[in-house]
């Protein structure tokens, strides 16, 4: 049981949970949350790929990739949330007549 095995499987599990959530959740906000879980799961796998048994330093390239991924994810999340806010406002207007 080494950390890379434990956290690698954790990452895959988190990705799977996110995937199920993104496909099956009905609340819009929760779907965004589920996609975010997917990205964290992918981050786990990449960070594990960079890991080397302690005295050795980890591989910096996947680390840089994950940081890039985090920033891209927040951009996507921000746009998705803005769309949700807009959509909800339009629907509320329709309901109010």
């Amino acid at each position, binding site marked *: 049981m080494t950390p890379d095995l434990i*956290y690698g499987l954790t990452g895959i599990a988190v990705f799977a949970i996110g995937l199920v959530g993104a496909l099956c959740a009905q609340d819009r906000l929760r779907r965004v949350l589920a996609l975010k*879980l997917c990205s964290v799961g992918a*981050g786990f796998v990449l960070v594990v790929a960079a890991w080397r048994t302690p005295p050795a330093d980890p*591989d910096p*390239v996947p*680390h840089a990739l994950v940081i890039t991924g985090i920033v891209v*994810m*927040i951009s996507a999340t*921000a746009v998705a*949330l803005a769309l949700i806010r807009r959509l909800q406002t339009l629907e509320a207007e329709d309901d109010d007549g």
Partner: protein
Amino acid sequence: MTDAATLFDLLLAGSVIALAIASLTVRDMFAAIVLFVIFGLLSALAWVRLSAPDVALAEAAIGTGVTGALLLKTLHHLRYVTGKLGEGQARDLTPIATVPAGVIWANAAFCGMITLGLALAFLGAPQAGPGFDSLVAEAMPASGVDHPVTAVLLNFRAYDTLMEVVVLLAAVIAVWQIERGLSDAPAPALGEVWQGFARLTLPAIVVVGTYLLWKGSEAPGGAFQGGAVLAAVGLLLLLSRIYVPRPAHRGLARWAFVLGTGAFAGVALLVSGGGRVAFEYPAQHAYSLILLIEGLVTISIAVTLAALFHGREPVAAPAPEGRNDT
């Protein structure tokens, strides 16, 4: 000792998975977001265990902190629009159409197959295959900085980072357009305790965020982590209405948005020529150039993240009834 560490790893991994499930299944949306934030922080902790402090910092600051703030802001807006602002719990905010159980089961089976495939691929992958470690270690002396992750981000793989800043720019343009003319949910009023807190901490956050940026050249930290911390100052100023964006500020904001991209691309083009390609910094100036780019990119990231939080473009407020465009 190894056993204690393994036990810790197992506990942490279990908590991360449990929190991921809980944040998708708990009914109260506010609780879901809070659980997600805890999930993000524990993931960051796990990444520290995997000796990836840079990634952990970025995840904690951007992936969890700023994302959590965005989610809560959206939740507040949804509650306002649906007239459920005063309620203790946030349930059923977006209209829910029931999906047939068969579809859900088919989806779940599909996800299960993908997961199985991923797990098999992960377990079958060669242990500690050749990475880029040796290449990076070889090139480090020429990079101009002492921290490998920063060297990769701003030198070896600078194109990726440039595109990342462009994505951020695209996001803020999209958000400004999507929410054009949307009315704002009333801000929760914060009293004198909050003001005292802001007076004490905001100046210190500015200094600490800049310190993270500066430290990035030799230790974990850098433009994204520092920028996110600085963005927190903007978030707090916006939340407490100490700063209210006005139409007149748009020009300045636009300059701040493109500053990072512009500086990054500008430096890349300026150093090219004379036998060098773009991003091939002259060795004696590499350190200064990287710090210059990082400094300007940080300003852009901070302003952009704060703008993403604020949402709609601050256009001149129309008359209250004029907004009714249905």
